[in-house]
C-alpha cells in the first residue's frame, strides 16, 4: 500500500487546486520571462547577463503585468529589481499556500513557524561552516574533495573519544581542539602526498585524478574508522548544559533555560546541543573571516584563489597555499562534526549525507564563493525546516529532507547557472 493512502491524519491540503494554480502560474510565466526577455534585450543590443534570470523571476512574480512593461521599457535588470520580484514570488507562494491549507501548522500557528525558522537558521549555520571548508578547497585547488564528509565524521569521532573514552570528563574544548589537530594533520599529509603532483604537471588528467584520489581517501577513512571504532553509534554528552534559569524570575517569559533547552520569549525553543553547536560555528566563522581578511596568510590564500599566477609573481608560494587550504578545509569539516557529535548519533557513515548536502550548498551559493557557501547553508537549513514543518503529508515530510535542497538547487541552476554568488563566466 502506498504511504499516501495510509489512514494518517491531516496529510492533504484542503484546497490543493489553489496551490497547484499558483505553481502553474510561476512555471508558465517564469519560462516565458526567462526565454523571451534575453531575446528582446539582445535585439536592442542591451546587457543580457541578468536578462534570463531576471526575466524569469519578474515573470513569475506578476506574469504579463510585469513582463509587458519590462519588455517595452527594457530597463537595466539589476539585483534590486530581481530582489523585489523574488520577494513578490515568495509572498505569492506563501499566500497561495495559506489559502490552500488554512489549517496547516505553518499557517495557523505562529509559534510553530518561528520555532521552525529558528531550527532552520541554527542548523543552516552549521551546514554553512561545513560547506565553507569545501568551497575553500575548491577555490584554491580547483578540486572538489569527496572526502569532506569523512573529515566531518572524524571530527565528531575524535571529539567523542577524547571526551568520553580516552580522557573521560575532559572539557569539550579538548575534544574540539583534538579534532582540529587530527583533521588538519590528515588534510596536510594527504595534500602533500597525493594532491601536490596536481600542480607539478605529473598527472595527465588532473580532474579525474583528484576525484578518484579523494574518493579513495573517503573510503579509506570511513572503513579505517569502522575497523578502529566499530560501526556502533556513539554520541558525546552536551558540551555546556545550561543552568536552570528563568528571566524574569517568577515567569521566565523572556528567557527560560533547562540543562537541555533554551526558550526565548516563551516562543522560540532551541535544544541545548543545537544552540551550542551553532554558537561554536559562528565563533569559528568569525575566526576564519578574521584569518582570511586580516592576516598576511589569509590574504595570500584569497590572492591565490583570485589569480594563481599573479599571486606567485607577488611572492606567494601557491603550493603552500594549496596545502594550507586543503588542511583548513578539512579542519572546518572536522569542526562541524565536533560541534554536531553532541546532537546526532555518530557512525562511520555519518558523513555521507552531510557531504552530499555540502555539495548542494556550494553549487547553490556559487562554486568557490565563501559568502555564497555560508548563505547557501542558511538557505538549505531554512528550506529543509520549512519543508519538514509545512509539507501536509506527515508520513513523507521528513523523508523528503534531501529533496528540499535539491529543488532549490535545480531552480537556481536553471535560472542562474553560476549559483547565487558565483563569478560570472
Amino acid at each position: 500500500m502506498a504511504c499516501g493512502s495510509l489512514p494518517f491524519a491531516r496529510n492533504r491540503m484542503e484546497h490543493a487546486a489553489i496551490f497547484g494554480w499558483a505553481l502553474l502560474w510561476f512555471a508558465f510565466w517564469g519560462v516565458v520571462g526567462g526565454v523571451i526577455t534575453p531575446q528582446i534585450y539582445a535585439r536592442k543590443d542591451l546587457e543580457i547577463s541578468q536578462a534570463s534570470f531576471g526575466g524569469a523571476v519578474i515573470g513569475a512574480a506578476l506574469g504579463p503585468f510585469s513582463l509587458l512593461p519590462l519588455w517595452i521599457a527594457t530597463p537595466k535588470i539589476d539585483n534590486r529589481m530581481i530582489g523585489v520580484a523574488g520577494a513578490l514570488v515568495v509572498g505569492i507562494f506563501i499566500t497561495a499556500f495559506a489559502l490552500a491549507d488554512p489549517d496547516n501548522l505553518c499557517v495557523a500557528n505562529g509559534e510553530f513557524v518561528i520555532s521552525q525558522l529558528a531550527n532552520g537558521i541554527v542548523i543552516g549555520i552549521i551546514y554553512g561552516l561545513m560547506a565553507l571548508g569545501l568551497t575553500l578547497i575548491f577555490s584554491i585547488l580547483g578540486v572538489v574533495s569527496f572526502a569532506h564528509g569523512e573529515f566531518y565524521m572524524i571530527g565528531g569521532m575524535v571529539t567523542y573519544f577524547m571526551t568520553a573514552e580516552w580522557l573521560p570528563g575532559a572539557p569539550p574544548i579538548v575534544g574540539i581542539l583534538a579534532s582540529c589537530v587530527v583533521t588538519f594533520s590528515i588534510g596536510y599529509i594527504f595534500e602533500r602526498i597525493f594532491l601536490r603532483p596536481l600542480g607539478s604537471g605529473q598527472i595527465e588528467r588532473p580532474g579525474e585524478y583528484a576525484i578518484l584520489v579523494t574518493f579513495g581517501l573517503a573510503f579509506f577513512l570511513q572503513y579505517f574508522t569502522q575497523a578502529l571504532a566499530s560501526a556502533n553509534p556513539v554520541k558525546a554528552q552536551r558540551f555546556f548544559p545550561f543552568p536552570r534559569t528563568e528571566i524574569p524570575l517568577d515567569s521566565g517569559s523572556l528567557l527560560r533555560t533547562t540543562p537541555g533547552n533554551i526558550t526565548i520569549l516563551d516562543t522560540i525553543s532551541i535544544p541545548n546541543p543545537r544552540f551550542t553547536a551553532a554558537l561554536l560555528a559562528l565563533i569559528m566563522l568569525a575566526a576564519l573571516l578574521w584569518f582570511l581578511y586580516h592576516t598576511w596568510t589569509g590574504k595570500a590564500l584569497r590572492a591565490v584563489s583570485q589569480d594563481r599566477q599573479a599571486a606567485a609573481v607577488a611572492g606567494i608560494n601557491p603550493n603552500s597555499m594549496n596545502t594550507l587550504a586543503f588542511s583548513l578545509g578539512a579542519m572546518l569539516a572536522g569542526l562541524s562534526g565536533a560541534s554536531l557529535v553532541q546532537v546526532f548519533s555518530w557512525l562511520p557513515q555519518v558523513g555521507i549525507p552531510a557531504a552530499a548536502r555540502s555539495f548542494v550548498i556550494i553549487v547553490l551559493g556559487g562554486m568557490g564563493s565563501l559568502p555564497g557557501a555560508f548563505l547557501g547553508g542558511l538557505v538549505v537549513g531554512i528550506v529543509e525546516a520549512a519543508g519538514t514543518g509545512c509539507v501536509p503529508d506527515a508520513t513523507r515530510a521528513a523523508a523528503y529532507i534531501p529533496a528540499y535542497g535539491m529543488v532549490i538547487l535545480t531552480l537556481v541552476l536553471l535560472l542562474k547557472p553560476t549559483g547565487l554568488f558565483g563569478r560570472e563566466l
Partner: protein
Amino acid sequence: MIPSLFPSKRRLQQRRAQKFWAVAALALLTLIFAACAPQPATVGDTTQEEAAAEPQPTAAPAAEEAMAPIKIGALTPLSAPGAVVGGEAMRDAMLIAADEINAQGGLLGRPVELIIVDTEGLPERGTAVTERLINQDAVVAIGGGYHSSVGVAAKEVAHDNGVPVVFAETWNDTITSVQYPEVFRIAPLNSEVSAVDVKFIQWLRDEVGTRLEKIVILTENTDYGIPAAEETTRLLGELGIEAVTFGVDIGAQDFAGIIERVKAESPDMIMTLATGEASYNFTQQAADAGLGPQDVPTLCNQVSLVSDAFWTNVPDGNFCFVRRVGLPTQLYNDVAINFLAEYQARTGKEAAESYALAAYDSIMIIAQAITEAGSTNPTEIIAALENITHEGSLGTITFPVNQNNTPEQAGLDPKWWHQFPDPAITIVQYQEEGQNSVSATVVYPQTYQTADPVIVGQ
C-alpha cells in the same frame, strides 16, 4: 617563477624523496589497518575461519569432499543505514551457535562454516548477498535476518533457489503469508506485536488510569514500519484512541522539524517504530526538546534493549517503555542461560537482546534440521524443519502450520505458515538511569510484572 621543462637534479632527488615518503606512508597505513582490522573469527561479510572447521589433510578428493565444511549463511546488518547495534549482536550470537556446533563435533561428521554477510538494512543489498550466499558460497541454509525489508527481498531469492531460510528478526507478515516452502520464521508477526502494543496501551489507560487520547507514532518508511503503524493505528482506532503517524526514512538523523510537529499535536504518548540509530536520534532529540521519555510516556524501539548503546546515545532515556521479545529473564530455560553465559563472555554485555537469542536459535534450528534430515539436501532440510521440535533459547520452537497442516486446513490466516506461534512478548521499562535492560522492570503483562509502571507527564 616559471617552471623548467627539464627538472634539475635536485628537483629529481626531491621527487624521489617524495615518492619514497608516499610509499612509506602507504605501507605504514596498510600495516596499521591490517593490525587493527577484525580478526578472522569475528569477520563480517566474509568467511568465518573457525579453528574447528580446519579440514584434515586427506589423500582422496572424495574424502576431502566428505570432510568439507557444511556452509550455513547468516544475514545481518553490519553497516549503516542498517541497525548496526542489532546486527553486531546477532552476528555474535550466530558465531556462538557455530562454535557450539563445531565444539560438539559439527554436523554429520563435518565441521560447520558460518558465512556472515552484511545486509546494510537495504533490500537491494539483501538480495545481492543472498544471491551470493546461495550461488557463490553454496550454503545449504540461511539464518539470521533483522530488517523486514531485507527479509521480504531475501525470501524471493531463497524461494527461487529452493534453499531453506529461518528468519530470526524480520516481522513483516507477508514474509510467511506468501507460503513459500523454503521460508520459516521464529520472530513474531508484525500484526501480533502491534496487538500486544495496543493491549499494553489499553491496559495503561483502563487499568493504570493513564490519560491516553492521542498517540503519536514515529515510524520508518519500510516493510516493517509502515504495516506496523497501519495496524497499530487501526487497533487504536477501535479503542477510540487517535493516532497521528510521522514517517521517516531508515537512518534519518535530524528530527528537529518533526519534533516540533509532534509537539504541536500535544500527544499523550509517543511510540517509536523506527529501528537503529534513527530510534536513538529521535528519542534523545525529543528529550532535548522537552518531549522525551521523562516528559511523555514513550514506547521506545526494541533496539533500546542494547543498554550500553542506548545510554550512550540517549542519556535522557529513563522511563522508556521497551518491547522485549523472548522469555522474561526469570523464566530463562537452560538453553537461554547457557547462551547468556557465552554471550556475556564474548561481548562483555550483561544481557542478551531478544534478536541475539533469536539469531542463535535460527542457526541451531538449522543445525538440528540437518542432523534430523541426515543430509544437506535443501528439500530434506525443509522437510525436517516442518516437523521440528527445537528446544531453543526462545522456548520450544515448532512450525505447526505447514504442508501437512495448511492455513486453510487449520482455519488460520496465511501469515501463520511456517511461523513460530508462541514468541513471548513483554513490555519492560527503564526506571533508573544507566540501568541494564536485563534488570529493567517488567511492567506488562501482569503475569510477568516485577513492578508498577512509572507514568510521567500526567
